[in-house]
């Protein structure tokens, strides 16, 4: 297994995708960080009637890291599998070591590490871009505050989980284009809309919090997208992480018993 994991690391870091995606992520998060921090410090009182300021504002803005950023760990995770099928490197991969369960597990291990790396990068991009504006234009960056530190820890954890989620999803939808389309559609349209639609009626509100994105927000501890509307119950951090883990386990099992049982060739 150790050897298989080492091979997986080399596969990922010997192509350009990991840093290209990381750069796009930095750009996207920094853009949102700058935009949001300027907008809320200058116009926040008018927009929210003074409800979001000080520490709440810092946590809210830093909390955008999950809803804005989670598409990236999902994508890089999914590529761990889809690129093997797209370029047929799955053949040499399974010749080097024929145990297909080990292949899946070593990809999950590697994705956890890569997820942590992406998490660190994302935190730096999000906080690095917004904290200066919060400090200069607003009430402060609150970086010494324990609530902010919990949010950072939650962000790192959720990025680890999203990347593993990506691996499991990519292992189920091995067609690279299909996997990317599904991830983009889910993260950019389906989940936000579904979250809103399910989040409003009393009856379905409970269901909405089990959607992956909502569970991810719970891990971070900041429900940024639902902010201000006062809706959407949120799970606790632990519950959120458990929900994401459940998704990962289910998809990984489906990957093992559907994709990895098929003929390769």
């Amino acid at each position, binding site marked *: 297994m150790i*050897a298989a994991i*080492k*091979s997986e690391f080399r596969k990922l870091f*010997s192509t350009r995708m990991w840093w290209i995606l990381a750069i796009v992520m930095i750009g996207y998060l920094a853009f949102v960080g700058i935009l949001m921090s300027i907008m809320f410090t200058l116009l926040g009182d008018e927009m929210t009637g003074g409800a979001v300021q000080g520490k709440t504002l810092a946590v809210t803005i830093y909390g955008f890291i999950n809803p804005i950023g989670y598409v990236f760990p999902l994508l890089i995770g999914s590529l761990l599998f889809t690129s093997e099928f797209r370029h047929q490197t799955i*053949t040499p991969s*399974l010749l*080097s070591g024929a145990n297909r369960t080990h292949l899946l597990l070593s990809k999950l291990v590697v994705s956890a590490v890569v997820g942590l790396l992406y998490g660190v990068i994302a935190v730096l991009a999000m906080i690095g871009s917004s904290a200066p504006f919060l400090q200069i234009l607003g009430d402060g960056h609150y970086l010494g505050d324990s609530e902010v530190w919990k949010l950072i820890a939650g962000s790192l954890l959720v990025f680890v989980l999203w990347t593993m989620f990506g691996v499991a999803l990519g292992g189920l939808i091995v067609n690279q284009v299909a996997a990317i389309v599904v991830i983009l559609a889910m993260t950019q349209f389906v989940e936000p809309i579904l979250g809103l639609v399910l989040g409003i009626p009393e009856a379905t509100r409970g269901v909405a919090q089990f959607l992956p994105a909502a569970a991810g927000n719970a891990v971070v501890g900041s429900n940024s997208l639902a902010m201000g509307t006062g809706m959407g119950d949120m799970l606790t951090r632990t519950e959120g992480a458990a929900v994401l883990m459940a998704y990962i386990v289910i998809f990984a099992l489906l990957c093992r018993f559907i994709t990895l049982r098929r003929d390769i*060739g």
Partner: protein
Amino acid sequence: MVTSPTIEVTSLTKDFGPVRAVDDLTFTVQPGRVTGFLGPNGSGKTTTLRMLLGLVRPTSGSALIGGKPYVELDRPGAVVGAALEASSFHPGRSGLDHLRAYAPHIGVPDSRAHELLEFVGLSDAKERRVGGYSMGMRQRLALAYALLGDPSVIILDEPANGLDPQGIAWLRQLLRSFAAQGKTVLVSSHVLGEVQHTVDDVVVIARGKKIHASTLAELSALASKRVSVDGPDRARISRLAIDNQWQWDTGNRGIVVHDVDASIVGAKAFAAGIELHRLVDEEVALEDVFLRLTSQVDAPVSLGGQA
């Protein structure tokens, strides 16, 4: 000398939906010899090799390496080296990185990757991305991958595709030297001529079925038996062929009878009172034998000694 594992394929069958790609195939591949696995396009060579390597699950039958299926081998990457159709590369990865990615899993140090790139003649291109490699360079890289674990069983699918004449000669030498070291070598091809000077044994398949398995020498013996017969009454000659269950066809100078000695044809014709004007033993190229074997799938040719 190493004692390398034997490859044993027994009643191997694979259906892809309605298509029977491999049909009740049985053969063995002995250590210390190069075995050519021959068949026209779509005859099931790659599918057979993929089953042997645990990538495709047989519908029935078994394919064993040293008595075990590939997936049950202890360190398969170090026992068996395989290169299937040379397209399994990430275009954005360099040749060196391709080998380095698999080295840990196979259990060899990175120095082995450099060594092999040198060995296959890619050391100048090893830092370049594979997307820019030519067909022949990809073949060489695939071969380097196959040899990474210094395997004692070597399985190559059409390794000569895209190689230049020097490359082919070099590959031939290499395969001969592996056999001389006692390794088990199985090489597929759709052209007999390509492996004619390399192999000791041949297994010929067509439409998934084995139609011939023997040593190359025995196959060559088949090649020389082609008798051209002609006379004033060609209809009687062809009836004679049918009556004797000879394989025959009409050539440009009469009738061609296969796999029978000219003396026998002459004797039978004499006994039947058929006048002959021509009775010639024709030497044929081995390739013609292969073509003839593979175009008559429904008439299997059996030979005593099987490879």
